[in-house]
Each structure stands twice: as C-alpha cells, then as structure tokens.
C-alpha cells in the first residue's frame, strides 16, 4: 500500500501542483514528560481542580434552586417537575455513555481494521 501511495506522490511531485497534501506538524515542538520546569500549569494543579469542582457544584445547585423562583411551563407530564431537566439530563447521558460502552464491545475494531484490504 505504501508503495502505491509513493508512486502517486512521485507523480504529483513531478506535476508540481498535484493532489498530495502537506505533511503536517513536522515542526511541532514536543516536551519530554514529566515536565522539566517543576510546577505544572496552574490549570492542572490538584488544588485548582478541587476548586473547579467546588465552583461547578455550586453552579449546579444554583440552577436547580433557581427553578423555585421561575415558573416552568409544563407541556407534558414530568417536564414541569422540580429538577426534571437536571435529573433527565444526567440520567439520559449516563444511559447513552453506558449504551455506547456496551455497543463498543461488539462494534469496536482496531483502527487498522480496513487498512489491509
């Protein structure tokens, strides 16, 4: 396969302005991990992450509490319940993640699956 793509590339190089795209990211710098410069970026420090979780939890609580002060229009049976969107959003996402995980057991293949044909 690589031989074939090389011939395509050679042909297009000869034509000068062929279809072959650039090779990307050749000059992308890369650092050796773990970081040499000591302190990690402030955003990934455990203390920052803990703080972010706290702030996020407070915002989550506020969105639910806010429903106490706002009249939510009810079209059907459950959608006017207190905290309906919070629970429905959380549970349906949980369901989709688990469903995708289970389906993946049957459908996932190595990403070279189609390459040898």
């Amino acid at each position: 396969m690589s031989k074939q793509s090389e011939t395509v590339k050679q042909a297009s190089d000869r034509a000068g302005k062929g279809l072959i795209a650039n090779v990307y990211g050749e000059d992308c710098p890369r650092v050796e991990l773990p970081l040499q410069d000591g302190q990690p970026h402030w955003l990934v420090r455990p203390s920052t992450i803990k703080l972010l979780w706290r702030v996020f939890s407070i915002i989550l609580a506020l969105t639910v509490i806010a429903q106490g002060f706002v009249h939510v229009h009810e079209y059907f049976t459950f959608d006017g319940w207190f905290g309906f969107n919070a629970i429905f959003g959380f549970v349906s996402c949980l369901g989709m993640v688990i469903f995708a995980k289970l389906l993946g057991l049957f459908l996932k293949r190595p990403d070279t699956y189609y390459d040898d044909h």
Partner: protein
Amino acid sequence: MTITDLIFPPAFIMIIGAMLVPMVRASFRPVLVVLVPMLTLLMIWNLDDGVLLTARFLGYEIQLVEASNVRRLFATIFALMAMVGGFFGFRHAKVTELSAAMAYAAGAVGVAFAGDLVTLFLFWEFMALFSTVVVWCGGTEASRRAGIRYGIMHLIGGIILKIGIEGVAVQTGSIEIQALTLNSFATWMILIGVLINAAAPPVSAWLSDAYPEASPTGSVVLSAFTTKTAVLALWLLFPGQTILIWVGLYMIFYGIIYALMENDMRRILAYSIVNQVGFMVVGVGIGTELALNGVAAHAFAHIIYKALLLMSAGAVMVQTGKRKCTDLGGLYRTMPVTAVCGIIGALAISAFPYTSGFISKSMISSGAAYEELAFVWYCLVAASAGVFLHAGIKFPWFVFFQKDSGLRPKDPSWNMQAAMIFFAAACVLIGVFPQVLYQFLPFAVDYVPYTADHLVTQLQLLLFAGLAFFVTLPLMKRTLTISLDADFFYRRLGPMLWRGFETLLGGLNGMMHKLIIDPARLLPQFWMRYHGPDGPLARTWPTGSMLMWVTVMLVVILIGARLL
C-alpha cells in the same frame, strides 16, 4: 437596486470564480476566494422573489433561478461558507482544492435557487462531482480510497433521485419543486435520493468515512454543503412527512452513540454532523411554521459552528499532524486562540444560552412541544444533553485538555485564526441578538428564546449532562479503535463474499474441466490427428504422390467400368 431580469444564475459567478482560481497569481488567490463569494452574496440579496430565469433544456421548460426567503437564506450561508472556508485554507490547500471547493459551493448555491427538479438534479450532480475532488485532495492513499467510495455512494443516490424525478415528470407532467405526497414509487425514490445526501440511515456511514479523510480545509468545506442542500430539498419537497421525524431521531442518536465510541477528533465531528442534520430532519417532519423556521435557522447556525469546530480541529491537525484523541491533549497551553474558538463552537453546537445553537435548536423542540408530540420532545431533550456530551465537552476536553500530550504547537497562521475568530463571533452575535437571524427566516417569528424558564431548564439540562461526562470519564477512556458501521458491508463483507465467490467459481471451473472439458478435448484431438496441420489428410502432398494416387484411382475406375 433589485434584479427582475436575470441573464445568468448566481451560481455562475462562483463557477467562473472556480475557473479563475488556478489562473491567477498565488498572491491574488486570497482576494479572489473572498471577492467571488461577496459578489455572489450581493447578487443573492438583490433577487426578487419568484421565478427569475427560465430556459429550454431537453424539451423541458426549466427554472434556473427561483428566489424565496428560505432559498435566499441557504444560498447566503453557502456563499458565506465558501468565503470563510476559502480564506481559512488558502495557504495550505492546493490550487485544485480551492478551485474544486468553490465549484462545489457554486453547486450548492445552484441547488438553493433551483426552481424545478431538473435544475436541482443538474446542480446536485455538479456538487457530487466536485465534492469528490475535494475528498481526493486529502492527498493520502486513505483519502483516494474514501473518495472513490464517496463518489460511488453519491452517484447511486443521484441515480435514485433521477429515477424519481423522471417518474414524477411522466406521471404528473410537472417538474415544479413543490410539496410532494408520498403516494407513488417515484416520490419515494426522490425522498430516498435526497435522504442519501442527508446521511440518513442505513447509509449514514458515507459521511464519517469520507469527510475526515479530506484535508483540514477540505473537511471544513465538505461539512457545509451536501447535507444542508439535502435539508433544503426536504424542506421544499417533503414538509410535514411524519416518517422524517423517525428518520431524524435515528440520526440524532446514531450520531451521539458513534461519536462517543470514536477516537479520531475529526470523525467525532463528522458523526455530530449526522446528529445535527437529524435535528433538522425531525423539524421538517414536524412541518409546522415554527418547526420549519427552526430548521432554516438551525441549518444556518449549524453551518457556522460546525465549520468553526472543524477549523479548530483542522488547525490542530495542521500544527501537530495528529488527529487521534489518544495522541492529543493539553494543547490549551500553546494554542489559546484555537482552543477558545473551538470551545465557542462546542458551546454553540450544544445550544448553550447566548450562542447561536440556543436560539435555533429550541425552535425545533418547541415545534414538537406545541404539536404535543410528547415522545419526540423527550427524545429531543435527551439528545440536546447528548450533544453537549459528545461534541460540547468530549471534543474540546480530549483535544485541548485531558492529559498533557507533551505537544507544544503554536496557534496556526493568521488567516486561519481570522477565519475562526470571525465564525466564533458570528456564533455569539446570533446567540445574543437572535433578531439578526430571525428577520430573515421564511415565516414571521413570534418566538422568544430568552425566557427565565427556558434559560433555567436549559442550563440545568446541559450542566448536569456535563456532570455526567466527568462522572463517567473512566468509562470513556480512549481506545485505538474504529466502530463497525454499515460501511462494513461494502468495505469488508462485500470483498470477502467476492473472494469467496471467486474461490467457488474456481472450484466449479476445475470440476467442469474434469467432467466435461477434458472428455470433450478428446474429440478435437481425434480430428486433429487426421485433419490437423500434420494430419495425413491435410498435408501438402508432393506432386509425384498425387500423380500416383490419381493413376491408382483411374485404374480402379477403369477396372470397375470394365467389370460392370
């Protein structure tokens, strides 16, 4: 100034532009890719409503240009997309690609203004042709193969569409584009032909197969036109067809589930195109004025934020050469502009308040609520949460945050940054001032997106979906995998069956040889022995032996005659 007598369709400006791209100097190319769509926009916005240009074609009176609100809106976003996409890519994309992309966009503008089915079909195929070239411009062996599969799929779709159009033309005598009823084979064929371009099941896989193999510019351009012209065609031909609700719901959840399983960032975004088009297909199926308005608004908003997302993914790919989530991560450190623009696109696709998705998607789900379609509405709400999950958080998280990949790429070139910032600004502008978009919608809008009720419920939904993402993060550990889809049948099973068939044929062939051909060979062997080139009866005989045999025969005859 308004145009009442046209001499050529707006699409022709861009076709000429596409032809000029390879001819002008490289330094003039960025000017051209911006100027040509601008001229097209100018023309689009000066068109009066109604049929403006007709011609005779194969004995049909075809309507090359018919303008209306919804057509103008789609044509506008197509031209705008050609402009920003071209500007994004002019430094990296090859000339072939820039030119093909503009021709492809011209096809989309042509479809938007097609007044009859024949014109629609012509521009439809024009798009198929040049979009295939754009896929090929990915320049890799994988994109060459994906382009062939993509081309075949769209040619098949085109044939099905053409069968339908011919059927309708014969049965009704009219090729007018109008709402059709699904009461004949021909109208069903048209529906199927259009749905293939919308990436509907069971062939949704063509999209996630082809688009991610194009170049970084190519996938930005591709994301806009084919599926959205299909949405416009559904909008014009099949509003209110209930079956579309179910097709659309399938697409919505297909997109979410496959995107959740995916590792390649551009394939994640490709699956989410199917998901977003699913929302539009549902809206067409609901078919009320509010829902149809929602579809038009959502298509407009979607093209912008999806292009923005693919631009940020493209920028990452250009700068790092990587596209798998397993290789990426932590890029926010050195690519802040790309990360912020990507996050704005991700928030917009998730319909976060004060972004464009919020004011468009909610029109579709409200359309379902007002029609009292309870099941559909609950599905749409769950899907909105799912969009935040698979595109809104998953894409930025795995590309720009998660682990530190050690990659330290810079933000991309200035033109790429400018294109991203322009579209990011558009997402926010439309979100904050919905009237900017609402005033151009096909029906009068009395929909108010920003109520306290709507804000609270949407924030609850999305933020708790976000909580679900981080809670289930261990379940989403990226794997070096792809997921089987319907393309398995033609990429793996088909070739496998073919090889099996070949083996079977080979076996049959051997048997035939033993039973029939080998015995039958004996017959010609027998003939060859006497009549073949060296056979005694076919040899050239010397004159002497000839004379001798003639003498012998004469003697035999003489003796015979004497005896009688």
